[in-house]
């Protein structure tokens, strides 16, 4: 079994396998990565850093492309408002 670590997504602790990208963790937690200009929930589309739909707040920094970031222990992730 892969080693696991804990991250916080929208204030809820989530346990993920080491190596999981933040985008994948948000999908597993069923949390949208961002809300669109018109207020729609969105989640990752292209999975390769092109579409920017997976951008979310990571450790307080907004607009991070979460498909390009691997989860680290105690990371705080939140849906981009």
């Amino acid at each position, binding site marked *: *079994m*892969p*080693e696991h670590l804990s991250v916080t997504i929208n204030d809820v602790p989530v346990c*993920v*396998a*080491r*190596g*999981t*990208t933040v*985008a*994948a*963790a948000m*999908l*597993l937690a*069923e949390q*949208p990565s961002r809300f*669109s*200009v*018109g207020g*729609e*929930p*969105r*989640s*990752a*589309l*292209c*999975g*390769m*850093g*092109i*579409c*920017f*739909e997976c*951008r979310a707040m*990571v*450790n*307080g*920094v*907004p*607009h*991070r*492309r979460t*498909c*390009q*970031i*691997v989860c*680290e222990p105690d*990371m705080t992730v939140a849906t981009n408002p």
Partner: protein
Amino acid sequence: MRRTDVLVIGAGPAGITAATAAAEHGRKVIVLDDNPAAGGQIWRGDTVETKDSSKHAEDAPRRKALERLRLSGAEVLPGRSVFSVDASGSLQAIRENTSGSQVEEFLFEKLILATGARERFLPFPGWTLPGVFGAGGLQALVRGGYRIAGKRVVVAGTGPLLLAVAAHLVEDGAYVSAVVEQASLAQLAPFAVSMWSNPGKLLQGAGYRAKLWKSAYRIGCWVVEASASPDGLRSVKLTDGTSTWTEHCDLLACGYHLVPNTEIASLLGCAFRGPFVQVDSDQRTSVPNVFCAGEPTGIAGLEAALVQGEIAGLACAGRDVASLQKRAAAERSFGERLEKAFALREELRAVPREDTLVCRCEDVRLGSLRGHTSWTDAKLQTRCGMGPCQGRICGPAVEHLLGWKPISVRQPLFPVPLQAFGSDAGQTEITESTEITEITERTELQEKR
């Protein structure tokens, strides 16, 4: 600032063979890639360690190529997005880490563009719902640790990628209820016949089909709508042009073949042949000391990328490439056959409704684009294509729907927070919304000039 003989942009198959060839012939080589690890898309590895680390057929060749790259002495720097480049020999990339972003500068003698391709997305009602992904997109996310075991998935769109993705999703425990290919049998049949001369690719295709024995393979059908319940995606409506039916699914993976990533080539002023970067038989572009290999020169798949990369790397090192030309020509002709076989059908233009979003970044609907005559006009009036993806997603869609050709690209190619340029970058707390608004305002001003 780093100085190198050969700078390669992209650590996919083309970039890997290019860097390996140049480094094995004594050149100092740096490879930049915007993903967290080398491999590119088709060779994307699982980021989560699994018990069975060689579960996918392409794992062995990928590992072998990466090992040879490592032994060549080429230095791979992942997590770098190139946002600015100058043909005189300098380039800037942004490196993002958990605490912020930094700008890095590289000086080069020779540049190899191995920037690969992205999926083409065509809008349909419901395509912005969570649970709807690109085809390669869903596969990439699964490789990144998204678990889909037990999920009911429809894979749709067009291109050879659909079967490969569907087979991988099945390996990962999903139930793929249908693979939906828009190309007609009349388009696909000559392609299938021509594949008899290429037993390797034929066997690969047969292998995918064998894994998909539980899935319906529907040719000449396409998605017209996706619907969700409060719990998530519920179903997808499909048509063959005559009748329409509903397929229940938890996830939809939909992509319409590939479009080349040519933004950096455009910025450098490279000549184009249609949508592709024009290269000679040594993979040289029209700009001195700039080479290009793989999908940006024509969508032709893995084997083409490998041989073109090797040619570019050898040519950079001043070596003879004649022995590779026959292989390269055969792969190019495969690409041309692919293009014909998976050409988009007219009916796809009628799929989005007037209220369907086209630009996901700025929430611009198809109806509000009507009446505009060009990209520039539409951008100024609607902001279509002016969000953080800079039209990379809606551009190919608009081209198909309205026939507007893309307009010239500008730096920065990716949103860059101004703080990243500061000396204390990395420590600076980036404040809400500066990043996105700065780039869009800047682009807007440039547009108006």
